């Protein structure tokens, strides 16, 4: 990780790779706690909304 393949003309060269700040937010606990709550709410709504 952190060692990206950037040689052009290979599939691996075209997807977006995360910047330092993206990596930071992914592991920043207070922000992830908020995402955790949001993900939980979405999942519960998916489950409950999916059957009658």
């Amino acid at each position: 990780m952190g060692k990206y393949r950037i040689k052009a003309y290979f599939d691996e060269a075209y997807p977006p790779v995360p910047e330092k700040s993206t990596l930071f937010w992914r592991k920043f606990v207070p922000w992830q706690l908020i995402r955790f709550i949001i993900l939980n709410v979405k999942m519960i709504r998916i489950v409950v909304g999916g059957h009658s």
Partner: protein
Amino acid sequence: MAKVVVLGAGVSGHTCASFLKKKLGKHHEVVVVTPNSYYQWIPSNIWVGVGQMSIDEVRFELKKVYDRWGIVFKQARALEIHPEGDASTGKGYVTIEYTAGDNSGVRENVEYDYLVNATGPKLNFEATEGLGPDKNSYSVCTYSHAAHAWEHLQENIKKMQAGQKQRFLIGTGHAMATCQGAAFEYILNIAHEISKRGLSKMAQITWISNEYEVGDFGMGGAFIKRGGYITPTKVFTESILAEYGINWIRRAGVYKVEDGKAYYETLDGEDKVQEFDFAMLIPSFSGVGMTAFDREGNDITDTLFAPNKFMKVDADYAQKPFEEWSADDWPSTYQNPTYNNIYAVGIAFAPPHAISKPMTSVTGRPIFPTPPRTGMPSGVMGKITALNIAERIHGATEHRHKASMSRMGAACIVSGGFGSFDGLGASMTVFPVVPDWDKYPEWGRDMKYSVGEAGLAGHWLKVLLHYLFFHKAKGYPFWWLIPE
């Protein structure tokens, strides 16, 4: 007193049996027939496969739970269904064969008023020459396969520590295999374990898949909102693979595996070989292969089951071009059309068609993933079927509870590493699993609930789900409040 027999004690069968007993109480009998003495929480096998969990952390003994609930437990494999009975009985029955204890190998006919087939998939390693844990590749589809994979993975790690480069090949081992999510999770965990040990430079990690584009996952991919754009899961998934230093091969139908070599054909018809030192390749799935007979003893397997051995239910199985498939083709009550007291839930039911666009190589080999059969819909199907059967037993004539994969979402939470603060989860939720282009003409799915993101939150969610589902499956206090 009515008797309901549930075949299989996986996600769907166990959920179904638990709700049946809760609704029917002591006045009716619930019987579970399953060949293994343990319940296993399959998603956590990934962690067994990288040595982060032991086998006993992902399984528990069923008998103890069923004794407490008052469910009759038969450790046996179902072989034949006789929906009309035979010359001696007019009642439907299942022929089972015990798999453990003194009566191992003994056959018995178990009569039923209602039958639920929740037997999941047969891991069809034989469909690919040389594939499987007894041959040339590993699997994480059961806890023992995963433990076996970890045993051998450690040898590769030791070799890298000794300065020997190793090639890892993870993905699908058949041109029409599904379950890409599980393989994707495993490859990320392997990459994490290798990087944690500072061995990334010694490893070449490759993803191989029958998907047209990476991120298809057998559901024709999906769109998610991300960074101010609507982005296909192709971009999301490739981005994660690139970040982990993993390269990929797509549109590949693996047809033969030898020691250290995987042979595959591409959609373009090219024949290629990928060499490896460690391979975990998911097999194709089929139904478990039960047969069926009418009252006179004639074979009616084709009436109950589709050619892939999955059971027919209330789906539209008419053959149609891809463009004409619709969300309404998917079943919602899981009742067999011929015998209305038989149901099939979870992976055991026959899907009406693929969700990913069927593709064939120039030589005529179909190369595309079959529909994913994820845990959340499997649990929901088990529950609604239990509720419908309980209500029928209490006199209802209609199915009040419905759940279709074209009205149900799925959450695919992929952990990458196990640490609470350095682990990573790639969370994807899609709603519905089967795109509904009439209801959501723009993207096929509801963009509010189709999410893809990476971060610790997903990892925590995966760990939370592990403990929540064990709590529920073991029937601990208020288990029924935990959603499927």
